[in-house]
């Protein structure tokens, strides 16, 4: 097998290994536990929870 072939083979084997390593890291790091916190991450002060944003097609209120 050519050197490139060996490289590709190891690359292909490394992918699932890296994926499992990431999963392990995520579990140890608590990434899989605090779902509450994870779910709230997109929200911040400027575009807070419980407030719809991007309602720019609201013509009625635009004309009023």
């Amino acid at each position, binding site marked *: 097998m050519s050197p490139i072939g060996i490289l590709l083979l190891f690359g292909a084997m490394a992918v699932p290994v890296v994926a499992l390593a990431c999963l392990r890291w995520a579990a140890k790091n608590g990434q899989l536990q605090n*779902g*509450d916190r994870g*779910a709230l991450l997109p929200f911040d002060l400027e575009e*807070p*929870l*419980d*407030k719809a944003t991007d309602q720019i097609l609201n013509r009625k209120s635009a004309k009023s």
Partner: protein
Amino acid sequence: MSEHAMSDSPNKNASGLDRGEVTDVSDLHAAVLRERPDPIEGREPLNLWMVVFVAALLFWAGTYLTHYSGGFRADEFSERQINPLPPPSESGPSTEDPTTKSAKEGMAVFLAQCSPCHQADGNGVSGQFPPLAGSEWVLAEGPNRIIRIVLNGLSGPIQVKGSDYNGVMNGFRDSMDDKQIANVLTYIRNSWGNKAGLVTPAEVATLRAATKDRTEAWVPADLLKLPVSGGDASAAAPASGGLSPEALKEALKKLPPDELKALLQGLGN
């Protein structure tokens, strides 16, 4: 634009505040506080049905893989081969019936070489590839004609089970040895309801030698002039030799009674 473009941006709302700017910090938290007591959002646990669904899928996956993977063999191209045969070297001396044994070994050859046209069930493809199951050519008393077909191929109009076909089949003289041809023919002659006995490698070897100078494919009409069993290319062919039983019956009916009587007497002798 400055670095703080958004906070300085001219998107003023009616109250004159910047977008997102809130006067009271408790207001700011109100939205979050309202949402917090609701225990469902963001952490709905896995639904039981989802778990059942995943388990069912995994079960299906295992079943499908077992049934349609051709034993995970690199040389198995048909997913319908459920129990792949062990390689020939592994099969030790057996007390099996020679016909069954030969047919078993012929199956792999058939699936690899013949089934693309004649199909795995031996029924061929209507109008294109003639059937092998129940074919009068296959079920003939001896394999004299079909060995020749496998060796040199076939080309031209042919009638099988009452239907007409006109195609080309290539020969396998160079790509299969005597044993393979004998095995595959035994398999064909003893599968899908066919019952026509064993073909031996010796029979194939005899015909291979007898027709060693032939390069072109057989024409069905020429084959019909040859006897169904035994003999070689030089053997004289009786006129009626290649007719199907039905055709023979028709031909016999047309004969004048006295000639028929003479013929029957001749056969009796």
